[in-house]
């Protein structure tokens, strides 16, 4: 399908822009000093679940790279790759979730939550710290502490905020299909 591929191109662009805006300009204090809730992972989870692993991965990759570039430094590649990975892993659930059918029952909520937690655990506890050690030779204790914190915070954000968003989104399409006339 030609159109769906154009749509993916656009979804990746707009998704990365959303990721960027939320990650760069929106800071919600988490309660722990100097750390913020990263709302961009809720959006990433949602869009990956809608558009699949390729789109999800690219949104994370482009969005995170742009954020790092805009701060002026060279992208912190280990974390950029981890963000991309979150999108890929959650995107693997896209077919099973089939969100465009407009139903988001308990099973699907569990599936969505499960994949998001899995994705964030793999990305932040396995991949990001390993790459940090490999590329930047940072101390293991430090990178794993950071990784565990990021995994917990981002999983929570993705599961709570992401699921609420998906649920609300599904309600808006369920009704469209059942509309016979105005």
């Amino acid at each position, binding site marked *: 399908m*030609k*159109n769906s591929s154009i749509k993916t191109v656009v979804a990746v662009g707009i998704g990365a822009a959303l990721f960027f805006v939320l990650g760069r300009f929106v800071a919600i204090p988490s309660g722990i000093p100097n750390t913020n809730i990263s709302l961009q992972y809720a959006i990433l989870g949602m869009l990956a679940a809608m558009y699949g692993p390729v789109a999800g991965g690219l949104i994370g990759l482009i969005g995170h790279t742009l954020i790092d570039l805009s701060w002026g430094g060279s992208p912190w590649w280990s974390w950029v790759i981890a963000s991309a990975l979150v999108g890929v892993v959650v995107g693997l659930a896209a077919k099973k979730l089939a969100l465009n059918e407009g139903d988001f029952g308990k099973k699907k909520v569990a599936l969505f939550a499960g994949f998001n937690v899995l994705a964030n655990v793999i990305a932040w506890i396995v991949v990001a710290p390993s790459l940090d050690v490999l590329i930047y030779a940072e101390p293991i204790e430090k990178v794993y502490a950071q990784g565990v914190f990021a995994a917990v915070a981002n999983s929570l954000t993705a599961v709570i905020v992401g699921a609420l968003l998906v649920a609300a989104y599904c*309600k808006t*399409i369920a*009704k469209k*299909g059942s*509309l016979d*006339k105005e």
Partner: protein
Amino acid sequence: MNTPIISFRDYTFQYRAQARPTLYNINLDIYPGEKILIAGPSGSGKSTLASCVNGLIPFSYPGESTGELIVDGMEAKKQSIFQLSKSVGTVLQDPDGQFIGLTVAEDIAFALENDCVPQAEMHATTKRVAGLVDVAHHLDYAPHELSGGQKQRVSLAGVMVDAVKILLFDEPLANLDPAAGKQTIELIDRIQKETGTTVLIIEHRLEDVLWRSVDRIILMDEGHVAADLRPDELLAGSLLTETGIREPLYLTALKYAGVSVTPEKKPAHPDTLVLDEADKAQVRRWFQAVQPAPAPEPKPVLLEVQGLSFGYTKDRPTLRDISFTIRKGEMVSIVGRNGAGKSTLSKLVCGFETPDSGRILLDGRDISDDNIRTRARRIGYVMQNPNQMISKTMIFDEVALGLVHSGMPADQIRARVEETLKICGLYPFRNWPISALSFGQKKRVTIASVLALGPEVIILDEPTAGQDFHHYTEIMEFLRRVNEQGVTVLMITHDMHLMLEYTPRALVFSDGRLIADKSAAEVLCDPALVEQAALKETSLFTLAGRCGIAPPEQFVQRFIDYDREVRAHGC
């Protein structure tokens, strides 16, 4: 007779998700070089008709079609959207959504890039086409540095890089200020004359399109072609009013005065309209028959703005030394071109931004130190796009949202929300999902959610943008009822009809300054002011002049009063 460039034969189309066809049995021929207006209320199928011609149907919006559609010698169904786009250039409604490039030049060249046109040729074509639509000096501008009208020109250039034979404009006036809309219509006319392209304009704002002549008007209604006539013929009849399209105001005025309008009088344009002495005398008699109603007693002052100045960046003020007062129970328009500072003013009043200098008083008390939240209890703000305000899926929850966050007990919230829903005519729908509502109903929900907080003033940004006459009337009559209940209403608008019909008073902004504060009728009868603030003269002004009635603003006022009477009595 030459062969039509677009030809519908017994054409019926049904969207996959819909239970019944959106287009029924369309038979229509459009010949090369014609300029056609396709009019009709929302949901009449006029946009669907356009999507069939440019190929978005069935390629992007799947569905079933029967019958035949020939576009430029091709059977539309069997072509790809890419092949069709070589013949049909489409300018969409949303100026930002279709501006894809990072700069003007890149956006114009977009189609050429996709066609792998070599760079030198691409640069030459882009320059030539940019010249045609007057954006040649803005080639390296970013979209947000352009006005709405300029963005639209860029979009037009972007489809003209291919030698298209048909230009399709989907509601080209929807997002423009009145002066820009007028220029767009002039530009379309010029391009059509210079290039001989066939032009289709989809628009429900008939009077504005007719600023330049069209060959035919196709009137759509409930999926059928209700009329396919020359403008003069269509305007002389009553079909427009029956389908819910607003006829030009000067014609309504003539009809009120008892002058019969026939095709021979060439009613398509107020300047070409043939009026004999008897007709003019008739209009004068109607004007003199009733004395203007006395002005009502002035109410106490509610909102007072004193010497307000503000700039987003230090050296470029957006608002300069603004002062005015609003009295209790008034209904006031805020008008002026995009970027004149209208929206900024409302943001300052609501406390979203902090003024550089000046004061805002509510009931005589300076509210400068009140935060957004505190002000919101007394001054409500309704955004232009309801989709950007609605954050709940059920109507009740949406209207209750602000109250829930104010910590009000649940039973009081229920009572307050139900009362608000009743006032807004939404009570029967209270348990509906918001996604099932029309745009106009959504708008009403957002107004309700603001009214639930019990404000004394509400400020609305473009309350009727993009709405057809029926929905426009629905929203505005609703606002009038809200106003009659004592709520002061301020509206930012580009709609000259709205300003004339609903708001006795208008604040006119230009370049960050308040340049006029007087009656709407006076504003629109002042050519210098109209020019400076990018507004559009009312055709009633032209008619008054032609009938020798002075001062024209009294004639306009007389018309508005009479029109309200007529409509209030359900005629």
